[in-house]
């Protein structure tokens, strides 16, 4: 799908991977709306990039519905959704000194990473389903109507220590990629997931308690943190390449997390 002039929703777009993607999509002529819980930060990023900021709690149905209405009104109905909103609460499931990990560690991450992603996907797909069908040189059954890009994590595949709850939510995002692609194929909506490794983002800095650049010892090549622009580049390629569907793509410099 050509992204220029398309209305695009990027959740968690105020910073990190989402902001990286927003910049690339704006450069390509897309009308981007950044969804973020932190409206002040979202507005700041949006002003800088020349796009729209919308306050949104992705796990809340009413909040997402309201945000989607606002985007439709200002930018037109969105056909592309990049789900970058995510949180990471690290900690071992049980330790000798600390006892069991609090259950909210899991429930909070499920709310944002999994329920939030699912919520945007179901409401976004339902919106696209009701739009007038786009036409192309292709037969109707293979004419694209929308694209969803979800964000999992290398942690969801490799299961590093201290990441039981986070890995569970990201593995769930991986797990829903294929059935969602199958469900939405009838409506011409593709679903692809990116599983990033160590990237230079505020989230990674918080989790690693320091500069992500210092945590790349296990990365074969390139031995540095990924740049949000590189994430954005792959998200853009996914939108532009119609044969990519139902797939989880690692973007990690060959890292296998331990």
């Amino acid at each position: 799908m050509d992204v220029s002039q398309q209305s695009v929703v990027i959740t968690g777009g105020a910073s990190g991977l989402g902001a990286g993607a927003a910049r690339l999509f704006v450069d390509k002529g897309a009308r981007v709306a950044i969804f973020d819980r932190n409206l002040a930060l979202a507005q700041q990023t949006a002003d800088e990039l020349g796009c729209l900021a919308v306050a949104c709690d992705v796990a809340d149905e009413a909040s997402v519905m309201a945000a989607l209405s606002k985007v439709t009104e200002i930018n037109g109905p969105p056909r592309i959704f990049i789900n970058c909103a995510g949180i990471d609460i690290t900690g071992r499931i049980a330790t000798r000194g600390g006892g069991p990990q609090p259950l909210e560690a899991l429930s909070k991450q499920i709310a944002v990473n999994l329920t939030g992603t699912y919520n945007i996907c179901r409401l976004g797909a339902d919106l696209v389903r009701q739009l007038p069908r786009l036409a192309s040189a292709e037969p109707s059954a293979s004419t694209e109507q929308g694209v969803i890009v979800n964000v999992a994590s290398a942690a969801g595949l490799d299961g590093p220590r201290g990441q039981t709850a986070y890995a569970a939510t990201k593995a769930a995002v991986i797990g829903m990629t294929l059935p969602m692609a199958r469900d939405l194929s009838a409506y011409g909506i593709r679903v692809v997931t990116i599983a990033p490794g160590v990237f230079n983002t505020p989230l990674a800095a918080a989790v690693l308690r320091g500069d992500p650049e210092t945590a790349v010892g296990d990365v074969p090549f390139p031995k540095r943190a990924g740049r949000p622009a590189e994430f954005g580049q792959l998200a853009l390629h996914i939108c532009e390449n119609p044969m990519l569907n139902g797939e989880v793509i690692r973007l990690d410099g060959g890292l296998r997390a331990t």
Partner: protein
Amino acid sequence: MEIKDQIAIVTGGASGLGAGTVRALAAKGAKVAVLDLNEALAKSIADEVGGIAVRVDVADTDSVAAAMATVKEKLGIARIVMNVAGIGIGRKITSRKGPHPLADFMRVINVNLTGTFDICRLASTDIATLEPVNADGERGVFVNVASIFAFDGPVGDTAYAAAKAGVAGMTLPMARDLANYGIRVMTIAPGFFDTPLARSEVGEAGVDKMVSLVPFPKRPGKPEEFAKMACHIVENSMLNGEVIRLDGAIRMSMML
């Protein structure tokens, strides 16, 4: 790395996915060596894009060595290597006709798996002697071709599935072996694409059946879409050691 002005090798470049890749690399400003068993066809593609054609049988190590030497002499050391050459065979491991002939199995392994490895080992040795092209220390990138048959192989494709799973399996250790030299290794596992190989694998009647299994888009992939993915891999340095399915979400059932 940027593709412009780089030297690239595409095996199996005379037709199908390989030919699409040759055209895309040339359009982005690469000097392309088209390596193929079919020299006449390779020459016509090479002439079209201003590249060179070199005959190679990837299953024959002497032929591979000679072809690599020819590319080095005529264009220089290629930093971009795309291993697209491949063959298939449809035969059950045993049937009323008797057991699967071992020679046929080995031929499929030799072309798809050993041939890919052979090109990679020679190319990486040469690339390691070059200076990096950027601040990451990047020297080269390999794009190998597996297949969705490596993961959900249908009836009658044991040899092809084994060879392609081998290609997928060596992606990560090869990326790790070559990380010190700044050479990335990636694999694409295509689904059903409109190529002479795919058409011969499934037969003309199988084309509609295959397409019907694709969730979306409901059509064969186009070689230019494969080529677009391959070029993106070259350009995105964070992609390494990974196998990417490019298949419209198809998962094969037991029968073709």
